[in-house]
């Protein structure tokens, strides 16, 4: 019998701990498939964040480092400077990347660090129980914006991809979504391109993935996917934000 669907080699056998309907797992799988296809598993060093993906080091079947909250780009910089011939990626949430680690991501991008960042924007702090993130939409209710996020007091949801795309060190940034098959396929293409650009030494690369958190959004998995499509994408437009020749 022919095997038509199997686990990528770049994932370990450890079962994911993510909640039902959470798209962290889908993104893990896409990254692993790309690592398999590019045959780079043995040459890849990943950096896990602090956030729901903290155990990513148990899932990616390659050498891994676990960074402090927000510092993955700095850790990846240290790794890449020691091993310029290896593929180095960070996997970071929106609290991690856009809030506490805002300085690290800006400067890694600006230096043109030849790393790939997979940025999971789920508009919330998942791991700590659903607090407001810098990416939380206006009016969105979270445990620390119980009356809905107000621009007046909490500012505006931050578009990291557009902001980072202004930096000269950036080779490639695309925002994608994983709310349906078509978009999942596009997300994989973007992740693949980001790794290819890194390998070609073009500069900093990032893929922002609009992702779900049914648990802290208080929705079913299906409602969550709808919410990404109907609420997140209009504010966070998909597409390539920067691509170097």
């Amino acid at each position: 019998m022919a095997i038509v669907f199997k686990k990528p080699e770049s994932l370990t056998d450890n079962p994911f701990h993510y909640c039902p309907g959470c798209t962290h797992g889908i993104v893990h799988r896409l990254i692993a498939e790309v690592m398999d296809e590019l045959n780079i598993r043995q040459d890849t060093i990943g950096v896990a964040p602090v956030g729901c993906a903290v155990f990513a080091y148990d899932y990616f079947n390659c050498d891994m480092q676990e960074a402090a909250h927000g510092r993955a780009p700095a850790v990846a910089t240290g790794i890449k400077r020691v091993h310029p011939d290896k593929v180095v990626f960070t996997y970071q949430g929106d609290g991690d990347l856009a809030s506490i680690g805002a300085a690290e991501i800006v400067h890694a991008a600006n230096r043109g660090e030849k790393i790939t960042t997979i940025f999971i924007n789920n508009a919330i702090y998942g791991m700590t129980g659903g607090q407001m993130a810098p990416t939380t939409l206006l009016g969105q209710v979270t445990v620390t914006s119980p009356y809905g996020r107000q621009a007046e007091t909490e500012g505006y949801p931050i578009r990291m991809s557009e902001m980072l795309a202004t930096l000269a060190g950036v080779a490639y940034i695309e925002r994608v979504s994983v709310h349906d098959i078509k978009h999942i396929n596009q997300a994989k293409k973007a992740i693949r391109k980001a790794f290819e650009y890194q390998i070609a030494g073009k500069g900093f690369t990032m893929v922002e993935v609009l992702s779900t958190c049914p648990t802290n959004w208080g929705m079913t998995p299906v409602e969550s996917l709808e919410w990404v499509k109907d609420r997140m994408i209009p504010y966070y437009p998909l597409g390539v934000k920067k691509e170097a020749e």
Partner: protein
Amino acid sequence: MSKVLMKGNEAIAEAAIQAGCRYFFGYPITPQNEIPAYMAKRLPMVGGCFLQAESEVAAINMVYGAAGAGARVMTSSSSPGISLKQEGISYIAGAELPCLIVNIVRGGPGLGGIQPAQSDYFQAVKGGGHGDYHLIVLAPSTIQEMVDLVQEGFDIADQYRNPVMILGDGMLGQMMEPVEFKERKPRQLPPKDWATTGWKGDRPRAVINSLFIDPQVLEEHVQRIYKKYEAIKANETKVECYNCEDAEIIVSAYGTTARIVRSVIELAAKEGIKVGLIRPITLWPFPADTFSSWVERDHVKAFLTVEMSMGQMVEDVTLSVGGRKPSYFYGRTGGMVPNPFDILDEIKKIRGGNR
């Protein structure tokens, strides 16, 4: 090799390069700026990498990444910058990564000042960051010793997979002295087979991590690290005793202050007062046993700790003396350097029973 005249900070940098350090991540702060400047010039010449990070926070996490990737790596800073690095230092200790951290201490708290101080002793020796861990803290008192300890420090870090801190001060960083870069007998160091270098399947998958979510596993992890600390205490404790034989008063001091105490000992001798010096070279592990061995001697009447702080190391001295003899403190702080005559006055007061 012949001696060269070097500024303390530059000597640290050159010593690190000669010890095989090829990666430096830092952020500017006075009074240690000569270290990154020297590294920026020299590291590219030897195939290394100097990177000025966006902050001390980023710098220490770059050190984490590079150390986890198997490199000999260092950072340097001064007090406020070292405070910012504390989370990263705790992660480095928890993940058992070897690296060298230099603190050229200046006066505090807060922005404090830029003159030499020893007011970061607690931070360096008692933890600084969160959790159960220790740095190995080396306190040179001459530029030559700084060079020797930097080189030794990298080996100690690698041998025990533990971060090592050089605790200097603005005086040691800025002064010039002749130094010699000696041929060193390298230690037998374990291979870094735990480092993330790309996994070919010929060793277990490398994971650099300080998260152990199961409390029982975390406790075992910490207990194992503390076993390592016992070996460090047994093997690496370093102290100098000077003029202690038949000393009436034993002064303890480290770094710059120990230099001053040496001239106090001469001044005191001229007046017929016998003063000795116990100079901890490792602040952690602290040479408690050395104090214990002198405390029982009849000729020793009292201990005096002198620091450029409001009194930090004195707590360890007093603990070691254990109430068996009186333990006094004299210090200046905020960048003020103790004057030998003032220290001598303190000694006289102690002798005269006026303290």
